[in-house]
């Protein structure tokens, strides 16, 4: 397999820019039938920030910025006080406002499988997309100067690994990832089972987030 891998690298290097562009635009085509979705079971979040650290480890995200994080809110007075955890990441919206805001065609795009990505080669770092995101999911990466955000660890998905690093490492087993088109996937089953307990963040913006939350009477989505 190692040989195969280096062959591939050589082939890529031999291609001209146009061929490479064609290839890049086809990304996700092999997953045409797939539509990825993310489910966070808030009842199981232990507020540990493992998602944030795992993301930093996996994606080498610089200090001070995060692709995935947790909002924590302490509220109320003793003994009726509460603490809410809200793990957040890019919602990979079906109707993403960030793409509309981007002035450079193709600098941010949505793959056929629903993953919203930034093409770092095209991004000019204007920050419009970050301003347009109602969830604050995008930021300007201090190391690259380009827009940055959660990719659902697309490099892992494309290598055939089944889940993003934050799902892989989630301490409460509160995070799920998979194919919404497959009724037997964990995400489809959870969404079906949870019915009206399934919510998305800031529904009023109409972006149709594809990160879904399972909530109960003890958990909250508006804790920012």
């Amino acid at each position: 397999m190692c040989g195969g891998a280096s062959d591939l690298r050589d082939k890529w290097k031999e291609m001209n820019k146009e061929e490479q562009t064609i290839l890049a635009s086809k990304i996700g085509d092999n997953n045409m039938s797939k539509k990825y979705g993310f489910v966070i079971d808030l009842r199981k979040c232990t507020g540990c920030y493992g998602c944030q650290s795992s993301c930093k480890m996996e994606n080498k995200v610089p200090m001070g910025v995060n692709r995935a994080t947790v909002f924590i809110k302490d509220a109320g007075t003793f003994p009726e006080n509460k603490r809410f955890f809200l793990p957040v990441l890019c919602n990979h919206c079906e109707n993403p406002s960030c793409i509309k805001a981007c002035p450079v065609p193709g600098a941010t795009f949505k793959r056929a499988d629903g993953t919203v990505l930034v093409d770092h080669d095209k991004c000019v770092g204007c920050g419009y997309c970050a301003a347009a995101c109602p969830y604050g999911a995008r930021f300007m990466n201090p190391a690259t100067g380009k827009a940055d955000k959660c990719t659902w660890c697309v490099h892992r998905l494309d290598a055939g690994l089944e889940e993003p690093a934050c799902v892989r490492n989630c301490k409460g087993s509160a995070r799920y990832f998979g194919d919404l088109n497959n009724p037997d996937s964990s995400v489809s089953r959870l969404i079906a089972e949870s019915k009206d307990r399934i919510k998305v963040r800031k529904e009023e913006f109409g972006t149709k987030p594809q990160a879904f939350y399972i909530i109960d009477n003890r958990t909250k989505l508006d804790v920012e």
Partner: protein
Amino acid sequence: MQVSRRVFLRYAAALGGVAALNKSGLMTLKNLSPSEAEAMQTSMGKYEVKYTADAMCPAECGMEMWIKDGKIAKIYGNKAVPMNDGIACAKGASGQQLVYSPYRLKYPMIRVGERGSGKFKRVTWDEAIDHIGKKLADIKKKYGAESAIMDCGDVTDRDHYYRLFFAYGTPNCTEHGSICDTPRRHGPKLMVGGKRWEPDIMRPQLVRQPDGSLKKDYTYKSKLIVYNGWNPFVATRIFYESRGTVGAKVENGCKVVVIDPSYSNTATAADMWLAPRAGTDGDLFGAMLRYILENDNQNDPNKKYINWSFKKYSTGWEDFDAAFKSWWGKKDPINGLSYFSLDWAADRTGLSKKQIEDLAHLFGITKPAALVWGMQSPGHHYNGYCASIIGVALNVITGNFDIPGGVIDTELVKSDKGGSATGKQFKSKKVKRMIDGKEVEGEVEHFHMDLFGSKYPAAWDDAVADYPNAFMEGVDVRYGPFRGYHYPIKAYILRTGNSILTGSAPYKWKDAILAKDASGNYKLELYVFIDSLNLESALYADVILPEASYAERQSLSDIYPSHQVIYNRDAVIKPLHESKKPTEIMNMLARKLHELGDSDIKGSDFWEKYKTEEDFVNEMLAPAPGRVNVGTPLPYPQYPEGYKLIGTPESLEKGEVTVDDRNKVVKGKPVTVEWLRNNHGVAIWPMSWYRYKKHNADEPNKAFPNTSTKLIEFKFDWADGGKRYGGYKSYNEKIEKAGGEVPLGLREIGFSKFPSTFFWFETKWNPYTNPEYKKYAKDYPFQLICGRVHHAMSGTQMIPWLGEIKTEGTWQPMNNEFEAEVPEAMPMGDEPMKAMKMKFKANTYAVGTIWMNTDDAKKAGIKNGDLVVVENPLGKSTKGKVFASGGIRPGIIKIGFATGGRFSEGLGPAYKTKDYTPSHNDLVDPDVLSPIMGFPGYADMIVKVKKV
């Protein structure tokens, strides 16, 4: 164009949809078999996957590390390990920042200034080993080998060092457990011969099915878990309790009760949060027990609390019951109320009668249930033993001990390890000493400073907090053959511990280490510090040795699963800088001592025997799993019940064994490092429950638990048929042989010997339960408690990613602006980390904070973020910023354990914030050492708070 791995992966993925490329032959990548895919995933970036464990944290989860070019590139949980089931928490995933930290100890050093000045010179390993060897040889000659203490701070990898020092001739070897939570473990140790009681929520479990096959079972059985002073979501020692608690809740409707004066992260999952006064855990447990005994009605399904079948598997209940009830007739001097009544408990705990009654009823009626108590409750109070003992009784009489979904003594069921590698056998070596002009012979073991010393002869986990006294005054042997012998402590070897900061009050430790004799020499003649980290305790050392980090050395994890599991902590990269592995350090020191003429140290026991660390680990693995074939379903129905099992799961399953009927042992092929490496790093043997009874009959199996009668024991010292039994028996025999001389600890609480069944005494520095301290309540209106924030301990405070995390009220982004060098991830290239100087803006980086109730703060004119001084009645104080919230009981102040005041530059960012972060330990009373185990009363203190 340089093709990054990411682009390459995108390319590879795109291939499937690009028919034109079919001709290129690259389509062979499509439709891989699962094994090909796995090989591809790891080979594409030339990653090598290694299975190891996360010993940067006491949970020691099983890890999968991806290595690229000899460096750690990725960290995930090992999916084959049931402790963490493939998960890595925030700490685990941040390991690169510890391993590649610029603050690590890099080379050996010898002190050049005064102790504590922090002035050292770099030396070679040979020079350092020579220095230590000569000192140790000299000390042994002048004072005897027992004058050396080997304190292994961390539990993991202690065995190499223990082995060396047992062979050298001292029994005084200890580890972290001794300053962790000994009173908490007391009840289990005394009553079942175990240690840690945890809810049965480790999933998956490997369970024998009726058809004989083994199945990974993920189903939760628990219906109620009561956590008292135990916060698994944050202090993650028993890692599965995070996903297990929320899993049992969501998937099995399990109710969760959290008892904690502060609203912990675990409390966020609680159906009931009770916030009592500090140090009243035993009061609450006692009231629960009395309520259950008084209100149990076997004919009323709503009051059928007790499962009386426990009497078949236990002994001494009548004695315990009578002793417990004898207190009901007494009036407590603090409130004039009958002990353990609801009124009494309400008055002392500050909870309402109804809350206590509801809890007692809920626990009594719900099955299966687990009542567990943690480090921050019985563990850290002077009288924690009482709570721990009542806790065991509550679980046992309600029928919850070792049932599916109940509570498990994880010490009793974890895999055995260590074997002869630990060097225990060296402790039985005969030695002679002159006492009062007479030559007396005993064994090395009989010098043990606690077990045969004048203070805590039942301190089976050692009394580290008493070491400063031993450095100053030496050890008086009062029990055993060397009774009457006195010896000084002259050498202190501290490895991966930080006793100066955390082994009770730092000032007491500093004073003892700096103390000089009449001629101006340090009383403690040798102090060696061994670690990967440059902690405060290093500043006071004479010699510093850099040990390989957890990812660079191999051993076995110290873990507490619900059945036998063992995994290899492989060395995944080579030791960085000049650091060395414990095996090598042990061998180097052994060889040096041998060269210097120490005939107790032989090559055949050390450097000739252990050529590699793998040799050592293989010897440690030899006894695994070492537990008896008991419980339902019987783990191995093909072997006799009650026989000890040794060998790989594979060989036991296949019947590749010898059965020794005389010694009742079934022996398969030994577990080895090689076997583990070929099995995802882990060996797992089957789970069973009801391990205290026969699998096919309601009678004891005489093989479990690990007590003198192999029954659960409610009495602790008794004679029957000319034989003596019980957990305290041997200690009372020591006292009797010494003419009734009462050890210091027992004298403090007015006992003349170790009690024969239930006992009770009050804690210290608690004005609400102990009349002696009532007078302080007005001037010191707050009780001070502490709690672990596992990602804010020494090693983890060096990790900046964890500084970006906040936790509860004791670890909050309240920093002043500071600049520090930190390891930063490199987005480009393959270098995992690079040390960079970075500026941290105010309130962006988490630091240790002082948590107090909002109303208390308001009354004192204190706002969130204000700098305050916290002072105790001993005149000691610490400074820090306040985090005020409704999430803490009024009258309580909480500070994270060792989160602040970190005065070693080796802590990196934490050092930069030391002037406004609190050190809880500065407020601990070093003279409050709990009477049986000599354990510090870390959470027995009262304070006042003043705005700076």
